[in-house]
C-alpha cells in the first residue's frame, strides 16, 4: 500500500497493482487511478517546473484545468505525447511519464536561477524591454535562448505510428458533461423518447458525484450515478466517456475528441488511438460544470498547495490523503466541505482560514460541528518550503483591508477554495453572450441561444440539488417537454457558497513577493498591475502583454483573478474591463485527431492517367499538376532531366513523339443552342465552324482577362468537344454552368464533364502520320482529306476514337481520344507501331520547350489573371462582328486600352547559353534606379535544343514597340542583356504544321 493511500474507500481497485514510472522512480497505483492520484498516493506533489521562473510546482487540480502537472507520456515506437495533464492521464500497467521543463532534473533545476534574478527582469513584457540591444541580437541570440529556457514539453520527433478515426453522428439531444446536471438532463431527454448522446471527458461518468458524501434519492451519490447510467444505457442513450467536447460550431455542430486506447496497456492494433466525433445535434445541453479558482497570496504556488475541491476528490474518489497536516484557505464553503472529508480520511486539519467578512455560514458551522478550527476573517500572507510547502503564515484580516500580526503554522498541505466559476467556454463558443453576476463575481450564460441549453454549475446553479433540478428542466426543454417529475432529494451536501476574486491582502512589500495568478504562464498579481500601469486597458491586451490565460489551460484557473486584479487597478467594474474570448478547443486536441485518416497517401486524392503504370515502368519522372501525376520526362540510363527533355524535343522535331495529354479538361457541349452558347462564352466565332473542324478557343472572365484556352472540335451541328487546360477543367465547367443557369437561361444546352472518360494520346512530329495511319480505320489522314484543325470519328487500334489533327508542338500532329479504359492498350499499340519511325515518348518538360519555341502560351504561365487577348498578341481571336461575349465589354474599358500595357514578347540573351530565371524582372537599365518599377517579367525560359540557344517569353510594358531593343534582366550574378524579339522562335510561317 502506498504511503498516502487510505485503507479503503474510493473508486479504485486495491486488489490489482499497476506498476508505472515517473522520471527515475518506479511506483505503483491501482486501476481507477489517474497519474496524478497515483503520484499523490506515493506522496509526490512535485510534478514539474514552471514556465518562466522554473519554480517547483505541484499538482493543483484534479481535472482538465490542471496548469502545473504537465507530463510527457512515452508509449514506445515513436508514441510520445507531451503536455498531458497528469490529472487526466489514466494509469495503466507499465506507464512511463516524465516531467518537463527542467535541467538537469526535476529536483535540481539550473533554470531556477530565473527565480532569483533582479526584480522586474522577467516581469510582464520583459522580452519587449530587456533584450533590445544590440540590433539583430534578438533573433540571433536572445530569442533562441529564451525559447530554450522557457516552455513546455518537447514535440515528438518521430512520425506518429497511431491511426485516428473520424465519425459523424446525429442526435436529437447532445448532453455535454455527465455530472449531476448532465445525467439529469440526459434522463429527462431519454425518458421523453429522444435520441440522446451523453459525452464526458472522464473515464467514468458521474462528474462530481463520484467524489461526494451527500445522499441522492436516499442512496450514495455514486450509487445514484450507477443506477442512472444503467437506465440511460437501457434507454439506448449513446454513452461516450473519455470524450471531450472541445468545440461548438454553428447550428449545433459539436466536435468531440474521444480517447479510445490511451488508457490501455496493449491496445488492439486496429483500434484508433483517438476518434473525432462530428456531432450534429438538434439540441445541445451544456452541463460542463464549474472550475474552482485558486487564491492569490504570496508564494501560493509551492508543491502541496492545491485546490480544495481537488483535494476532496483525491480523498473521496481515489482514496488518497494528499497530506498529513493541512491548512485550508476557504473563501468558499467548498473549503469547509474539503476540510471535513479530509479530516474523515485521516488528514489533520491545522486550521481553516476564511478571509471573508461574511464567512461564518453553513460551511463554517459544519466544520465546527466536525470539531475543526475556523479562523476568520484571516489570510495566508506567505508560505515556505523548497520542494514542498512546510509552513504558512496566517494573519487576521482587519476591516480596513490591512493584516494583523502573523502566526506561522507548520503544514504539508494547503487547500485553496477561491470559489467556482462556471465553465461557460462552450456556451461562449456557441455565440452565447455572458452576463456578469456582480453579487457572486462570476460570469453566467446570458441571453439564450436557440438550440443551446445550459444546466447546473455551468449555468451558475451550484450544489447537487440545484444542478439536478436545473438538469431535469434543461433536458426536458431540449426534448420539447416539461420535466415530468421532481428532481431527487439531496441530503448532507455543503453547497459551495462564496468566493474571493483578485489578490488577497498580505501587508508585505509587493516588489518582494510573487503571488501567482496564472500558474502555467508564471504571471503574478504584480505583472497584471504592471500591464495596467503601462497603459493597457482592455483585458485582451493585458492577456497578450502578460500572457495570462494562454497555453494549454487557457486561463481556466486564472482568468477571473486576472480580470479582478486588472479591474481593481483600473478602478473600473469587472464587466467594463471585458472578458477574453473563449475559442475552441476547450482542451488541447492532437493534430492526429483532427487529421484523422487524411494522412500519407490519403492526404490528397491522386489522379493518374490510363498510361501511368506504363510511364512508371519506363522510369518516367513525374510532376504534380493539380491532383494529376504527369510524366515530366522519360530519362534513359545516365541521363538527367535536361538531357532527357532535350533528346525528346529533338525526336519530335526530327521524327515523332508520343505524349500523354489525358489530363486535358474535356467538356461535351451539346444541344440545339450549343453553338450560340459557345459564341457567348468564347471570344471566337463558332457559328461558322463546320462539323469536322476544330478551332483554338479563348475564354475570358467577365472582367476581360484570359481565363482559359483550348481546342474545340465540332462533331455535329449540335455537339462540341471542348478541351480546357489541365488545371482549369473544373473552373471552366463551373463558369459555363454559372452562365448557362443564371444568365443565358434562354439557351437549351447540356454540359458534361468528360475529362476522365477520354484518354488523349498526342502523336507529334514529321512522321506522325506514318506512325498513326496503319492503325486508323474509317477515315483518311491525308493532308487533303484531313487538314490541320480537323476532327474525325474513327477507329484507332480497333477502338472507337475521336481523332483531332492539332498541334501544340508546331509539328504535324494528331491527338487520339479513346475511351479511358482502352487508353493503355492504344498507347502501347501506338508506341509499338512507332518504333520503326523513331517514335519517342516525351513528357511535360519537352512539351513546354516545344510549345515555347513556337510561342504558344500556357494560361497560368504567360497569364496571371490580368492579361488580355491583345496583351498576348491574340487580338485577332476576337470574333469580328460579335456584339457580345463574356468579357467583351470589359476590353474597351480605358485601362484595357492603355498604350503601356504589358505585352508578350520573346527575349534572346546576349549570351546564347545564359538561361533567364522565370519570374525575373525585366528592366530598362542594367542597374535600375531604386524605386523605379520594372517593365515586366520573364514568364517562360528554356534551353532550346532545336535552336541550340536559350529562349524566353516575357510580358513587357509596350513590348511590341520595343522589338530589337536591348533590355536587362537582373539576376543573381549580374544583369543579363536581352534583345526583344517576336515571341515565335521557330517556323513563324507554320509550314511544319502542314506536312
Amino acid at each position, binding site marked *: 500500500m502506498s504511503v498516502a493511500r487510505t485503507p479503503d474507500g474510493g473508486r479504485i481497485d486495491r486488489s490489482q497493482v499497476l506498476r508505472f514510472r515517473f522520471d527515475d522512480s518506479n511506483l505503483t497505483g491501482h486501476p481507477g487511478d489517474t497519474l496524478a492520484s497515483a503520484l499523490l498516493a506515493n506522496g509526490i506533489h512535485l510534478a514539474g517546473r514552471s514556465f518562466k521562473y522554473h519554480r517547483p510546482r505541484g499538482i493543483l487540480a484534479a481535472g482538465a484545468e490542471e496548469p502545473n502537472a504537465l507530463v510527457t507520456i512515452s508509449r514506445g515506437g515513436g508514441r510520445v505525447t507531451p503536455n498531458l495533464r497528469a490529472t487526466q492521464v489514466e494509469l495503466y500497467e507499465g506507464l512511463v511519464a516524465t516531467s518537463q521543463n527542467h535541467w538537469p532534473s526535476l529536483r535540481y533545476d539550473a533554470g531556477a536561477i530565473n527565480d532569483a534574478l533582479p526584480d522586474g527582469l522577467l516581469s510582464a513584457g520583459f522580452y519587449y524591454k530587456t533584450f533590445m540591444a544590440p540590433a539583430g541580437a534578438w533573433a540571433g541570440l536572445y530569442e533562441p535562448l529564451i525559447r530554450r529556457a522557457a516552455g513546455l514539453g518537447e514535440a515528438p520527433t518521430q512520425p506518429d505510428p497511431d491511426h485516428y478515426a473520424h465519425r459523424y453522428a446525429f442526435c436529437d439531444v447532445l448532453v455535454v458533461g455527465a455530472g449531476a446536471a448532465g445525467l439529469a438532463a440526459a434522463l429527462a431527454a431519454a425518458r421523453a423518447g429522444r435520441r440522446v448522446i451523453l459525452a464526458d471527458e472522464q473515464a467514468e461518468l458521474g462528474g462530481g458525484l463520484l467524489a461526494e458524501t451527500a445522499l441522492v434519492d436516499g442512496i450514495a451519490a455514486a450509487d445514484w450515478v450507477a443506477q442512472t447510467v444503467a437506465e440511460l444505457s437501457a434507454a439506448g442513450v449513446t454513452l461516450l466517456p473519455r470524450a471531450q467536447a472541445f468545440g461548438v*460550431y*454553428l*447550428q449545433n*455542430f459539436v466536435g468531440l475528441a474521444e480517447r479510445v486506447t490511451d488508457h490501455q496497456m496493449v491496445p488492439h492494433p486496429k483500434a484508433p488511438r483517438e476518434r473525432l466525433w462530428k456531432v*450534429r445535434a438538434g439540441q445541445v445541453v451544456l452541463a460542463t460544470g464549474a472550475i474552482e479558482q485558486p487564491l492569490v497570496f504570496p508564494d501560493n504556488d509551492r508543491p502541496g498547495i492545491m485546490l480544495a475541491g481537488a483535494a476532496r476528490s483525491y480523498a473521496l474518489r481515489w482514496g488518497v490523503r494528499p497530506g498529513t497536516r493541512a491548512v485550508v484557505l476557504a473563501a468558499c464553503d467548498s473549503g469547509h466541505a474539503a476540510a471535513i472529508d479530509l479530516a474523515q480520511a485521516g488528514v489533520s486539519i491545522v486550521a481553516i482560514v476564511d478571509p471573508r467578512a461574511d464567512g461564518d455560514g453553513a460551511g463554517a458551522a459544519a466544520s465546527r460541528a466536525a470539531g475543526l478550527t475556523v479562523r476568520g476573517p484571516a489570510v495566508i500572507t506567505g508560505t515556505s518550503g523548497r520542494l514542498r510547502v512546510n509552513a504558512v503564515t496566517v494573519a487576521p484580516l482587519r476591516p480596513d483591508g490591512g493584516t494583523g500580526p502573523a502566526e506561522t503554522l507548520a503544514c504539508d498541505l494547503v487547500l485553496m477554495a477561491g470559489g467556482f466559476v462556471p465553465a461557460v467556454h462552450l456556451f461562449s463558443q456557441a*455565440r452565447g*453572450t455572458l452576463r456578469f453576476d456582480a453579487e457572486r463575481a462570476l460570469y453566467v450564460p446570458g441571453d439564450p*441561444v436557440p438550440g443551446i441549453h445550459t444546466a447546473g454549475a455551468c449555468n451558475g446553479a451550484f450544489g447537487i440539488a440545484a444542478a439536478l433540478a436545473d438538469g431535469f428542466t434543461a433536458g426536458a426543454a431540449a426534448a420539447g417537454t416539461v420535466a415530468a417529475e421532481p428532481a431527487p432529494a439531496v441530503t448532507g451536501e455543503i453547497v459551495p457558497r462564496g468566493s474571493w476574486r483578485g489578490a488577497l491582502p498580505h501587508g508585505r512589500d509587493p516588489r518582494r513577493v510573487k503571488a501567482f495568478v496564472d500558474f502555467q504562464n508564471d504571471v503574478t498579481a504584480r505583472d497584471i498591475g504592471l500591464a495596467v500601469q503601462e497603459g493597457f486597458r482592455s483585458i485582451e491586451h493585458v492577456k497578450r502583454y502578460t500572457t495570462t490565460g494562454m497555453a494549454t489551460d487557457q486561463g481556466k484557473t486564472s482568468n477571473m483573478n486576472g480580470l479582478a486584479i486588472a479591474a481593481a487597478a483600473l478602478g473600473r467594474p469587472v464587466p467594463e474591463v471585458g472578458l477574453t*474570448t473563449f475559442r475552441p478547443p476547450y482542451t488541447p486536441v492532437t493534430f492526429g485527431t483532427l487529421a484523422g485518416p487524411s494522412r500519407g497517401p490519403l492526404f490528397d486524392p491522386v489522379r493518374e492517367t490510363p498510361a501511368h503504370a506504363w510511364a512508371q515502368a519506363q522510369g518516367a519522372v513525374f510532376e504534380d499538376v493539380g491532383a494529376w501525376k504527369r510524366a515530366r520526362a522519360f530519362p534513359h540510363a545516365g541521363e538527367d532531366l535536361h538531357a532527357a527533355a532535350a533528346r525528346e524535343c529533338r525526336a519530335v522535331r526530327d521524327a515523332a513523339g508520343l505524349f500523354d495529354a489525358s489530363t486535358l479538361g474535356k467538356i461535351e457541349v451539346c444541344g440545339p443552342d450549343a453553338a450560340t452558347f459557345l459564341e457567348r462564352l468564347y471570344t471566337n466565332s463558332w457559328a461558322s465552324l463546320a462539323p469536322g473542324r476544330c478551332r483554338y478557343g479563348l475564354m475570358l472572365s*467577365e*472582367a476581360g482577362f484570359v481565363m482559359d484556352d483550348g481546342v474545340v472540335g465540332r462533331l455535329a451541328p449540335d455537339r462540341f468537344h471542348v478541351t480546357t487546360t489541365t488545371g482549369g477543367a473544373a473552373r471552366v465547367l*463551373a463558369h459555363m*454552368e*454559372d452562365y448557362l*443557369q*443564371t*444568365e443565358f*437561361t434562354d439557351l437549351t444546352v447540356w454540359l458534361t464533364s468528360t475529362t476522365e472518360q477520354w484518354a488523349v494520346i498526342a502523336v507529334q512530329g514529321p512522321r506522325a502520320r506514318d506512325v498513326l495511319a496503319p492503325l486508323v480505320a474509317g477515315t483518311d489522314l491525308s493532308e487533303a482529306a484531313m487538314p490541320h484543325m480537323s476532327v474525325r470519328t474513327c477507329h484507332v487500334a480497333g477502338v472507337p476514337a475521336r481523332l483531332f489533327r492539332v498541334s501544340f508542338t508546331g509539328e504535324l500532329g494528331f491527338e487520339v481520344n479513346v475511351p479511358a479504359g482502352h487508353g493503355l492498350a492504344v498507347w502501347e499499340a501506338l508506341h509499338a507501331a512507332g518504333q520503326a519511325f523513331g517514335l519517342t515518348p516525351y513528357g511535360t518538360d519537352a512539351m513546354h520547350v516545344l510549345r515555347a519555341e513556337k510561342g504558344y502560351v500556357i494560361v497560368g504561365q504567360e497569364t496571371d489573371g490580368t492579361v488580355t487577348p491583345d496583351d498576348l498578341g491574340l487580338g485577332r481571336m476576337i470574333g469580328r462582328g460579335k*456584339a*457580345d461575349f463574356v468579357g*467583351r*465589354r*470589359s476590353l474597351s*474599358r*480605358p485601362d484595357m486600352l492603355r498604350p503601356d500595357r504589358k505585352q508578350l514578347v520573346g527575349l534572346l540573351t546576349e549570351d546564347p547559353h545564359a538561361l533567364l530565371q522565370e519570374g525575373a524582372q525585366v528592366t530598362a537599365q542594367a542597374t535600375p534606379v531604386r524605386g523605379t518599377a520594372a517593365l515586366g517579367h520573364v514568364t517562360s525560359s528554356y534551353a532550346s535544343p532545336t535552336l541550340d540557344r536559350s529562349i524566353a517569353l516575357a510580358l513587357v510594358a509596350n513590348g511590341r514597340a520595343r522589338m530589337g531593343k536591348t533590355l536587362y534582366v537582373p539576376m543573381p550574378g549580374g544583369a543579363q542583356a536581352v534583345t526583344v524579339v517576336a515571341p515565335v522562335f521557330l517556323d513563324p510561317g507554320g509550314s511544319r504544321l502542314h506536312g
Partner: protein
Amino acid sequence: MLLIRCPYCRADRPEIEFRHGGQAHVARPTDPSAVSDADWAAFLYFRDNPRGPIAERWRHTHGCGRFFNAVRHTVTDTILATYPAGEPMPDLTAMTRPEGGR
C-alpha cells in the same frame, strides 16, 4: 459547418457540398455595349457588404449542381432563407433578426 437547405433537393445538406458564388441579384446587362464605363465597372467590381442579411448565390456543387440564392446574416452567419435562382429577392429588412455574437 453550416447546414444549407437546397431549394431544389429540398434537403438540409452540409456546407462542404456547396460553393459560394458572390452577391445575388446582380444581373448581367442585356446589352453591355450600351453600358457606360463607370456602370460597367460597378457591375464588375462593386458589391454590398452589409452588417445584416445579404442575398447570395450558392451552388449545390456536390449535389444537384444547380445555382440558387440564399439570404445569410453576416453577423450570425445563419442562413435565413434559400430560394431558386430567378425568384425575386425576399424583403431583407423583414428578415433582420437580433444579432448574436459578440
